[in-house]
């Protein structure tokens, strides 16, 4: 029900976009993330992008985890 999946934006037209879900394209509403650009990762739920996923923050989190749990 609350499941949300990540997808990469490949097309934008007004407040509608197309995401690549590992080879399958799906049209979604971008109405909640007007700042989105092509190439951004977004989190998709019931046909809407609910937020942008920051690749920078994803890598930072992993680097932090690797440092904290290095031993």
């Amino acid at each position, binding site marked *: *029900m*609350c*499941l*949300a999946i*990540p997808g990469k934006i490949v097309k934008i037209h007004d407040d509608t976009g197309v995401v690549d879900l*590992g080879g399958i394209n799906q049209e979604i*509403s971008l*109405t*909640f*993330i*007007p700042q989105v650009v092509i190439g951004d*990762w977004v*989190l998709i*739920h*019931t*046909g*809407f992008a*609910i*937020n942008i*996923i*920051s*690749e920078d*923050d*994803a*890598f*930072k*989190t*992993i680097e932090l*985890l*690797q440092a904290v*749990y*290095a*031993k």
Partner: protein
Amino acid sequence: MLNKMFQDHDLAQKIITRISGFKENIRIMEVCGSHTMAIGKWALRKLLPSNIHLISGPGCPVCVTPPSIIDSLIDLQSVTIATFGDMLRLPGNNGTLEDARASGLDVRIVYSPLDALKLAQKKETIFIGIGFETTIPGIAHTIRLAKKKNLTGFSVLPAFKIIPPALKALLNSSVTNIDGFILPGNVSAIIGSNAYEFLPQEFDLGGVVTGFEPLDILTAINMLIEQHQNNSPKIENEYQRVVSPTGNINAQQTINEVMQVQDSWWRGLGYIPASGLGIRDEFRDFDAIYKYNLNITDQQPDTGCQCGDVLKGIITPPQCPLFASTCTPANPLGPCMVSSEGSCAAYYKYER
């Protein structure tokens, strides 16, 4: 893929080793159906030592929806009922929507409320508006679109719930002995991590906003253990790649434009003040309760189901006498077995 990075086996093992150094009992509650599923799917309960108790709270919208939502719809023979698929088998007082469909009710499963709006262009359509903050903005936007395009054949039956008041009610009920929360990643994408500051301020409890991969959940558990050891409850955000302190302001504004906070009845938990959302008067033409004069009450069938105690963390699903005997996913007696995200359904699938 971004999520694959958070499935790394070696790093997961290192975090589990760290967690295993902690020997006290700790009770951690998650309040998101996707966390319930992820904990089961990645077998985290089995991988962690038995002193780490992971409890599934009220994180499944279908499970807390009152049966009268179903009852109110099953006599509406002249309209299309559009719904997310999870709702189809939720027991009402007089059967399920699936039963009603077999008797001729026009029930359609949709992926998005926007699909229901398309159906409404052909025939009057009621969309069942269930969900938490993750789902509500999309439905609010769809109502706004219906008004803008004057699609008067479309309406929404509002049964929306919001998470922070439910957490407060749960903690005020004092039956739950919780040491900290794994906070819902998708809900928080909308409302932001600041929305939980009442937990340390009012209840002296910590929480970690968490993603849905094994490294996310394991990291959050270890962060909560460290908070517990240091006696420093606070709100931390493990899921910074998606969640900001203030959330998605556009989505919040859309909710506020179309909906208003109201008291709400949660199946299994009862009546919780200011824990639901209704449709504002300006959008009343799109509110199915007014349009069809529907009667939403708080009666629930007495099946012996103990879903309420499961949602509060008082018992685990196998402690209910109905679990896996008369109540199964193929024949669910109670709401926690209906949705795949329900605590009982997840235990049935992954933990037996």
